């Protein structure tokens, strides 16, 4: 199987810092897949992307993009597209001029750059806005144009660093749909995100990076979204009670229904438990409430938060 991205034992410490940003980072992304790098702020996601896109030299370790070592930066740059955390666009120029500019700088001849720009405007639904300055674009439109610029030379690997951070739900949906279309087109994508849901929605496989304190800068778990969900005990059932006196009974109920130890928050009168099968757990909870005589205010099913993911993964010490 061809690997689009291969990284082995990458290490990097920023000057002036004592804690390494990356500390033995490994990655293998097969061509044609979407790989999610999931982690909180400071886990080293952006550092990994900066190294793999030749913007930063690692202190040690080895990495290849489409079989080409990073040391051959000029060749690597011909095979990657980078969409950073902030839309890196020329605000004064219009959308089409941005695409042509970056196309020319990606070494496309003038005519090909213009043709490719028109193609991408259509593909990313920006034809109507093509002649407007980018400064008039909405957040979602900027991101779409940014993705289009990343695709200007049909990269072997497209790097997306937190592509939806700062977007409203509508903008997020637009970007997800654009990423899915690129993947359907055969592009390999390496995506970093702080949102479990985003990795879940888009990624074929996910690498979880540890929180910065302690074992930061390395992958603590890797697998398909389903494998990871199993590893972290699936979704969460949250039960909020009206009377504090009901908390022990609620905890007992959720312990029976869920997978693992329920967590009780006395202040918020709330009990939370992991549940591998969310629907089965939910349908067992409702009759259980009546049977135990618990006066419930609210029952919710939700995805685990990043905090819970890391708590669980570090607790089970998966390596």
């Amino acid at each position, binding site marked *: 199987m061809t690997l689009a991205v291969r990284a082995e034992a990458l290490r990097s410490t920023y000057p002036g810092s004592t804690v390494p940003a990356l500390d033995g980072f490994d990655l293998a992304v097969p061509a044609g897949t979407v790989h999610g790098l999931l982690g909180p702020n400071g886990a080293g996601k952006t550092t990994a992307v900066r190294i793999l896109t030749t913007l930063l030299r690692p202190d040690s370790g080895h990495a290849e993009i489409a079989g080409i070592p990073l040391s051959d930066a000029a060749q690597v*740059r011909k095979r990657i597209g980078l969409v950073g955390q902030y839309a890196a666009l020329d605000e004064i120029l219009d959308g089409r001029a941005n695409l042509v500019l970056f196309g020319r700088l990606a*070494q496309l001849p003038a005519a*090909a750059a213009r043709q490719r720009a028109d193609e991408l405007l259509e593909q990313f639904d920006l034809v109507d806005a093509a002649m407007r300055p980018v400064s008039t674009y909405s957040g979602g439109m900027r991101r779409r144009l940014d993705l289009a610029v990343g695709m200007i030379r049909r990269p072997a690997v497209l790097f997306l660093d937190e592509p939806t951070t700062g977007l409203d739900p509508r903008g997020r949906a637009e970007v997800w749909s654009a990423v899915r279309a690129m993947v359907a087109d055969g592009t390999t994508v390496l995506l970093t995100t702080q949102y479990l849901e985003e990795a879940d929605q888009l990624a074929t496989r996910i690498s979880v990076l540890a929180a910065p304190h302690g074992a930061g800068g390395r992958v603590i778990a890797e697998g398909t979204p389903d494998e990871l969900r199993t590893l972290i005990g699936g979704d969460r059932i949250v039960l909020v009670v009206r009377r504090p006196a009901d908390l022990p009974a609620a905890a007992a109920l959720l312990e029976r229904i869920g997978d693992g130890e329920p967590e009780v928050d006395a202040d918020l009168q709330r009990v939370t438990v992991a549940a591998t099968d969310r629907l089965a757990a939910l349908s067992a909870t409702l009759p259980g409430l009546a049977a135990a005589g618990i006066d419930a205010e609210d029952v919710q099913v939700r995805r685990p938060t990043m905090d819970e993911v890391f708590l669980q993964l570090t607790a089970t010490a998966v390596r």
Partner: protein
Amino acid sequence: MIKGKTSSIDLGKQPFALDQRHISEPLESLLSAFTDTRVLTGRYLAHLRRRPAQLAVTVAFPVMILLIFAFLFGGMMQAPGDYRIALVPGMFTMTMLFGLSATMIAVVTDRQRGITDRFRSLPMSVSAVLAGRAVADLVVSAIALAVLIVVGVAVGWRAERGLAAAAAAVGLLLLLRFALIWVGILFGTRAHNAGAVTAVQTLEFPLGFLSGLFVDPATMPPVLRQIAEWNPLSSTAAAVRELSGSPGWPSSSWISEHAVLMAVVWPLVIVAITAPLAVRRYRQGDNA
């Protein structure tokens, strides 16, 4: 809404004009650097076309300062000859200095927007990014200078020693601007916040005043006089006065007697120091 359309351009086989094996690699990268520079210069010039108000302010500001000094302060000023005419070459030089913060702002903006990182992730030439900046900024300063020359003539300044000498004077002014572009790029790659830009902008005037641009350094206290005479701006202004036959301050030291020579040497020294540092800093990116 988003179509996963397959490209009609086969980029895999695209005959990237400069990507072919039979072209030698140094020649290939030279040609590609040239194209990249042209594309980036085009980008900056497109900015001028789309923001004409900004260009108008850049051009009008030195005109305003010239008029202030010529007609508001000028009555009090002394020169061997008409002060207003002596002032005009000083303002030409000052206009080159005003470009410093403009260059710096452009570099900082690209860095903050992530455009610099995107450039660095593309298979393009490093020097082209900086060269494109340099060419575009020279164009802007040349436009500002052309307008100021017209105003200078209206104030009474003339190219008394012929067109060739005047052209040489313009050449020296743009050479100074070229040197200041590299200073601006270097500052821009090092600035960490907008405050640094404001600081440079604020310091432009004191730097211009501490020279022979507006007054004769001989009127200053000894230490300041030394600094003002050795200020590279003074050499350019004095050289322009000499080449245009404008009244100037009497030469009293080695540096003021060799104005034309030093108007060539100073900018070259500045470029020799700042350009390699700027290129190195750019290659490192924002990591160090």
